[in-house]
């Protein structure tokens, strides 16, 4: 039995410790917002937060999460009101949407560590997340917009 805390809730998972964490999140806990893309840590679709770091859950064993704090796209905010989610919505970022939960989870780490990212900072942070629809320009614009929203929110 492996105990993990996902989006603030404690779960005891009876599964092989070598199971990919993504499998446990999707198939056992039913949190399907995180996507399977490549299975090789190449595309970023499966990005979640492990103790605040944006790990690739397809290549991370369940055992690594034992006793740790996991946040998935479902737990990024209480009411889908994280500045990134607001900006994503405002700027119609997704096209097919498949990669977007991973994009958001990576962008969240960027904004947490750098509230005023430059285009270069965004490229450096987001280059591990691939979008086959090619929404990169909107992703970059929305991250800038989210940074502004976060500052406005801090003032009010």
């Amino acid at each position: 039995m492996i105990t993990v805390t996902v989006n603030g809730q404690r779960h005891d998972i009876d599964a092989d410790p070598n199971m990919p964490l993504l499998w446990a999140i999707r198939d056992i806990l039913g949190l399907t917002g995180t996507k399977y893309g490549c299975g090789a840590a190449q595309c970023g679709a499966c990005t979640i937060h492990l103790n605040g770091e944006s790990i690739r859950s397809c290549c991370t064993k369940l055992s690594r999460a034992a006793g740790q704090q996991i946040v998935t796209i479902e737990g990024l905010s209480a009411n889908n009101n994280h500045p990134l989610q607001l900006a994503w919505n405002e700027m119609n970022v997704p096209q097919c949407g498949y990669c977007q939960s991973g994009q958001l989870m990576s962008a969240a780490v960027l904004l947490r560590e750098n509230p005023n990212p430059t285009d270069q900072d965004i490229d450096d942070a987001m280059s591990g997340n691939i979008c086959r629809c090619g929404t990169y320009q909107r992703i970059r614009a929305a991250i800038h917009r989210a940074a502004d929203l976060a500052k406005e929110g801090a003032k009010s």
Partner: protein
Amino acid sequence: MKKLIFLSIILAITSVVALSFKTEPARKKNNMIGMKDSVGSVKAFMAVYKVLMSPRCMNCHPAGDQPLQGDDSHIHTMNVKRGVDGHGVYSMRCSNCHQAENDPGVHLPPGNPKWALPPPTMRMVFQGRTPRQLAIQLLDPKQNGGRTKAQILDHITNDGLVGWAWHPGEGRTLPPMTRAALVTQTRLWIAKGAYVPSAKVK
């Protein structure tokens, strides 16, 4: 009588010559430890150099601020960066993909608990270094992480991330000699005087 004296002299000379041959190698062996030998030292270093310049070692000692990948040492896909601590930047930290052990399968991320580049304050570049440049760098505490020669040998002998090079996971070639052989050559290089190859050696 004369014949007996002559034979005794011949026997004495033969014995002295024979003994001198016998003792020479023993004397050499005893003096080997700590004996400086620039040719032997450089020869040992060149064996070390071949290992350090192999992809398994050099890929994480790049000239730029991006790690290298593969046996052709291409720049790491995804535009991975060194970062302020050698562990990447923002959502592109090494341990976000690289686990404490290799993921099984070809082209899957290799892993080690210490997976990282050297930090920007101590870059320890291997890529592009000539044998002379690399030897000078390895011997300079200001460029080698503050290590003494004994600590360099210990690093090569015992460091876990160095040891990964001989357990790199599927599809990755090994360094050109075993770790034990590398340790032997490093020890010889240092014991014979830690000589630096001339600029002509390539």
